């Protein structure tokens, strides 16, 4: 029998929606979205992004909410056995392993980023960044992730904050849905408030940040670049792939967390309105707040040219504290607390969601209680995450992000969309989506879920598998049709498997210390792959054991 604690309930509907929105709203809303928009032509990116949200994001949310609620009717709260209930073929439960594996692996490095935000909140309060120039702020981050050196007077500061962060997550998870819901109810309004403050600052900065060093700096130039539509780019597959990819990450679909939260929704309760409400709440945070912070503030002080060159994840930690310092010590501290505070809340509401599938699985299948489930999650994440902390500069972090946080999501989402629309059946699926609905889902979505969403996911998967050289699709197709073959980019999945980019760098390097460093990177990334593969097959084995247990108990 499933443990009684696995039959827990959400406290309120608003709490459920805030928790789901919190699951979706993550660091990517503020960091990845601006980066993708800048790298994909600014205004060119927005239109495909919105279209992908409507034809892939929203349908995937409905699919995952309804799969979760459907599985919950049978007492399943994690994807292996949720998928198992949807088809007679026993293989599906092993696809469901992605819904636990991805969360463990992503939580391992995600909690590390979360711990940076926690540490940076304290550094902002203490005024650590006061008087530092841009290079010194960037250097501070590099020092921070070089574990042996301390920036705070605490030995192994990054490790200490990482462990604190895991303990916070685990303690909240041990309280079950009640704890998750409470954090969402506090964290989401604070996040919106902090985000609104910084967005207003970004929107009103104008050209006041221009200096002799950056005379053309203008917040308007950043916003102008972001919002000028370029219709010609609508035919560029690169932009569509980037837009579809961003929708994935921003909505936290393809992870198994939505299924897990929805599994605690009663069978006669609405999911159609809940899903779309949580989805749009995420889009509000991303499109409205996310677009008005990093881009205008960075362009406002450093210029659009600098932003285009340096757009990336690093801006958050390596540049933003320096930009805030232009506002004077007090406001810089307030802005720092708000910026890193909002990133912390965005992070923790997502990492808590990542803990629930593992807990649900252990409670359902092995009768573990909530506390045991939560602390075991913390222990696994710590063990899996420490290599990302200690070997951050040796590629381990990026390796986790690529395989668990990128490829696995696409594979799982593609599989679940096919299972839902083509194997479980669109008629049953449609009934499931609309059951108890407080809104009527437009009929066009029956067609979209059956055809468009799986095709778009297939396009994303194939596009990532065979990404052409320099991501230049026009040249790639031209070469293909003129008999010159298809040259793969080193960031394509196939070339990534072979570590081609890294091996090319080793072959081209002449400096012995660089060659030694690159060989180390090769070794550690291979080790990370072995570790991730072991975890994946370890969970497969646990699912098999759980299945045999079910057979013995007459529950299969």
């Amino acid at each position, binding site marked *: 029998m499933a443990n009684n604690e696995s039959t827990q309930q959400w*406290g*309120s509907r608003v709490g*459920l929606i805030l928790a789901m929105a919190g699951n979706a709203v993550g660091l990517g809303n503020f960091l990845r979205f601006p980066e993708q928009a800048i790298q994909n032509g600014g205004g060119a990116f927005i239109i495909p992004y919105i279209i992908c949200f409507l034809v892939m994001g929203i349908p995937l949310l409905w699919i995952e909410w309804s799969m979760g609620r459907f599985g919950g009717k049978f007492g399943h709260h994690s994807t292996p056995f949720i998928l198992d209930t949807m088809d007679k073929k026993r293989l599906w439960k092993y696809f469901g392993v992605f819904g636990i594996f991805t969360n463990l692996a992503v939580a391992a490095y995600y909690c590390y980023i979360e711990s940076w935000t926690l540490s940076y909140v304290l550094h902002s309060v203490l005024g650590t960044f006061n008087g530092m120039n841009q290079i010194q702020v960037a250097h501070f981050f590099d020092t921070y992730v070089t574990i042996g050196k301390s920036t705070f007077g605490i030995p192994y500061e990054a490790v200490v904050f990482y462990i604190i962060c895991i303990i916070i997550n685990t303690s909240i998870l041990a309280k079950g849905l009640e704890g998750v819901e409470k954090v969402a109810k506090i964290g989401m309004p604070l996040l919106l408030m902090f985000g609104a403050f910084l967005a207003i600052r970004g929107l009103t900065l104008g050209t006041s940040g221009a200096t002799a060093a950056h005379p053309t700096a203008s917040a308007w130039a950043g916003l102008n670049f*972001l919002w000028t539509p370029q219709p010609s780019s609508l035919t560029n597959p690169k932009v569509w792939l980037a837009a579809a990819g961003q929708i994935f990450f921003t909505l936290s679909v393809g992870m198994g967390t939505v299924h897990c939260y929805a599994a605690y*929704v009663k069978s006669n*309760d*609405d999911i159609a309105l809940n899903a779309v*409400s949580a989805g749009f709440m995420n889009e509000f945070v991303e499109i409205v707040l996310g677009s008005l912070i990093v881009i205008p503030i960075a362009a406002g002080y450093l210029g659009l040219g600098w932003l285009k060159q340096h757009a990336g994840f690093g801006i958050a930690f390596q540049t933003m504290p320096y930009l805030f310092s232009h506002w004077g010590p007090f406001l810089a501290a307030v802005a720092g607390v708000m910026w890193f505070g909002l990133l912390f809340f965005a992070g923790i509401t997502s990492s808590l969601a990542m803990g629930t599938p593992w807990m649900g699985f252990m409670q359902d299948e092995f009768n573990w209680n909530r506390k045991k489930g939560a602390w075991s999650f913390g222990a696994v994440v710590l063990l899996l995450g420490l290599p990302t902390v200690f070997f951050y500069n040796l590629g381990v972090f990026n390796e986790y992000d690529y395989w668990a946080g990128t490829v696995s999501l696409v594979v799982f989402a593609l599989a679940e969309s096919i299972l839902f629309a083509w194997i479980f059946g669109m008629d049953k699926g449609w009934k499931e989506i609309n059951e108890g609905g*407080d809104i009527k889902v437009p009929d066009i979505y029956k067609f979209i879920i059956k055809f468009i969403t799986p095709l778009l996911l297939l396009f994303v998967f194939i596009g990532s598998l065979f990404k052409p050289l320099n991501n230049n699709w026009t040249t790639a197709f031209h070469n293909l049709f003129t008999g010159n073959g298809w040259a793969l980019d080193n960031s394509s999945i196939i070339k990534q498997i072979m570590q081609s980019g890294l091996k090319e760098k080793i072959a081209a390097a002449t400096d012995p210390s660089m060659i030694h460093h690159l060989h180390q990177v090769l070794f550690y990334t291979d080790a990370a792959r072995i570790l991730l593969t072991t975890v994946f097959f370890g969970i497969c084995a646990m699912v098999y054991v759980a299945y045999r247990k079910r057979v013995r108990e007459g529950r299969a």
Partner: protein
Amino acid sequence: MNATALTLMIVVQVSVTGITGYFFWRVLKSPPEPDSYTEDKKEEV
């Protein structure tokens, strides 16, 4: 900012804000099913 960019920004941001607000308002307006959420049960008691 040029006029096209400004228009697109305002249209997209106002629409997203409006739609988000509308759906959330619908959630608040729709009464949940009995026994669906634990806080509702506590209120009934």
